[in-house]
């Protein structure tokens, strides 16, 4: 994935977060949405996205739905009940991580 390895560990969280805002999304749509939201700063590579989606599906966090679009079948992913719960805890985990990193990068000057 991406232009930075730093994002790699957060790919599942990014996918879950995007899906929590939409009813369902397909693979290509996810890559485009991330590109759009980050103004091109973060590009999810195809070789990272699909393995992550398949893993989340195998873990029961995502379910799939097929739809015929134009002349082909499209696979949509949506959150399961378990996936919705997991999204909340993953986001909390990410927030804690960001706070910790922030504390490390910008330590508050201590008094005395």
């Amino acid at each position, binding site marked *: 994935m991406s232009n930075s390895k730093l994002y790699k560990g957060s790919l599942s969280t990014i996918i879950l977060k995007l899906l929590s805002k939409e009813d369902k999304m*397909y*693979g*290509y*749509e996810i890559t*485009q949405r991330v590109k759009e939201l980050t103004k091109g700063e973060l590009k999810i*590579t*195809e*070789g*990272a996205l*699909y*393995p*992550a989606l*398949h*893993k989340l*599906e*195998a873990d029961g966090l995502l379910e*799939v*739905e*097929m739809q*015929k*679009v*134009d*002349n*082909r*079948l*499209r*696979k949509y992913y949506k959150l399961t009940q378990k996936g919705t719960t997991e999204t909340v805890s993953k986001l909390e985990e990410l927030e804690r991580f960001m706070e910790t990193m922030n504390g490390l990068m910008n330590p508050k000057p201590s008094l005395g």
Partner: protein
Amino acid sequence: MKKVTSLQIERLFQFTDQHFVDYYDVQLELVDHLANAIEEQWQENPDKDFETALQEEFKKFGVFGFLEVVEARQAAMQKRYHQLMWKEAKEFLKLPKVVILATAFLVSFTLITQITYGVYILIGILLCLVILFSLRFYKNNKEIKRLRKQSKQKPYLLETLLNHTGQFGAFLNLPIQLLVLITKEVEINIWIGIIYGLLLTGVTLVFYITLFLLPRKRDEILQEAYPELKMQTL
């Protein structure tokens, strides 16, 4: 907006085929992805040649091409297969099926620990079972080949796992090997009886599930995993 034609969709299936994507479910997803990406390129440059756009998109998958996607899908489906196996196995830990397991264990245990030449009787019984399982394996394979000849498309990944017992077929002669070992090198006592009893019962159960129970539920399992199959039967 310029769209990918049906003929070009066929070319995309062929392209994934040429790049070692042997499963229809993986092909479906990749074909849609490539088609979307090519159409996106055409938005900016409608005159761009289809093949050039395709090669550009393929490069984005990295040096390993579609391999990472295929491997991840295999891992995910193996997990699903093991979950299906476990679901069936759990039924054997409940009444009434647990009686069958308990009987199989007691027979193995008694033959190993209590009866002179019991191990050889057990080898005979297991040999019959292995022959039965092998015949079933052969029959399943024949049926798969027949179905494959009828179909133009690649098989689904989970279908392949169901057809090939999720790789467990390679261990078909394991029960016999275990028992041959006991006749040569192991001193028989109660613990050996318990361990062998559990092991043989477990291995036999695995073969029964993978060779008989799961293939019987094939259509139901595949429709659950691949919603498009339900669409086709509607």
